């Protein structure tokens, strides 16, 4: 029996390492689970891109669930995500609020002219301060905010067809169930 002990110890280690490898294929190491999920979205008031005199705040968006998509013209992954926003996400029927993060307004406008504009309204966070309140640390990121202004879901990284089916659609189904 005691001769077999090293073998068991070895198998235990193999199992542990195997679990570690499996875990890393299932989880994105760069993803920080947001502490804001199921908490009220932070209050904000930001100018609309291209119309600096008009502002949009949290209160004006209440009453209906919406997506808040963090994007920027400097963001490479946003280009890859954009077709999804233009088609599949748009077809979900929720308003998409663009959150133009730390971007030059002219560059952002040109970027949207080139790639298309899926957003119902775009707010500009030039210095990234509102982004900090939302726990944004990169782009793209997408929040799902419900009618009461509570953050229900957050995607860090681009929305892919897989993410849409496995995460976003179920999150929306959960929202629909609550609605009277």
């Amino acid at each position, binding site marked *: 029996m*005691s*001769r077999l*002990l*090293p073998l068991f110890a070895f198998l235990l280690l193999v199992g542990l390492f195997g679990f570690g490898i499996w875990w890393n294929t299932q989880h994105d*190491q*760069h993803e*920080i*689970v*947001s*502490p*804001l999920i199921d908490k009220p979205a932070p209050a904000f008031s930001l100018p609309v891109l291209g119309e600096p005199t008009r502002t949009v705040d949290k209160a004006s968006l209440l009453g209906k669930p919406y997506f808040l998509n963090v994007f920027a013209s400097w963001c490479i992954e946003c280009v890859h995500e954009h077709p999804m926003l233009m088609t599949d996400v748009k077809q979900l029927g929720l308003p998409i609020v663009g959150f133009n993060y*730390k971007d030059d307004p002219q560059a952002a406008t040109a970027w949207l002219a080139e790639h298309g504009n899926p957003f119902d309204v775009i707010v500009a966070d030039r*210095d*990234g*301060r509102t*982004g*900090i*309140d*939302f*726990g*944004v*640390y*990169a782009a793209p990121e997408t929040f799902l905010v419900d009618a009461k202004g509570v953050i229900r879901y957050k995607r860090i990284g681009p929305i892919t067809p897989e993410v849409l089916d496995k995460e976003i659609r179920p999150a929306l189904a959960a929202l629909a169930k609550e609605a009277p």
Partner: protein
Amino acid sequence: MRRALVWLILCLLPVLAFAQAIQPLPFRDRAEEVRFQKLSAELRCPMCQNETLADSNAPIAHDLRRQVFEMIQAGKSDDEIKTYLVDRYSQFVLYKPPVEPSTWLLWFGPAVLLAAGALVVAIQVRRRARQAPVSTPANDTEDDW
């Protein structure tokens, strides 16, 4: 002489590069600067993940350093600043996580493993000590590990 001067300038170049990497912030005094450096070295950059806020060059680290600096200037305590960041970026930003039930394994796991190892060794040593007088040395060394 000129050659020595060129060497001296070359030697000083890395210092210049280093000075450039640091974000210049208008500290009130040396104590405040030391406090800022200490605090930002305890915080982790959410973007690059293995760098402290003090070391990282990521845009978010730049913004968070600015935030920390402004909060220091506004008279916030270190704990208040940490809470502010944890509320937004989770405990991930703390290089030293607090001791609480969800981090017990992290804090005490190594000590438990060490104790378990010590226990195994102690049991083995005792067992051998008991066996030693009866079994002959030749047999013992071949059979056991």
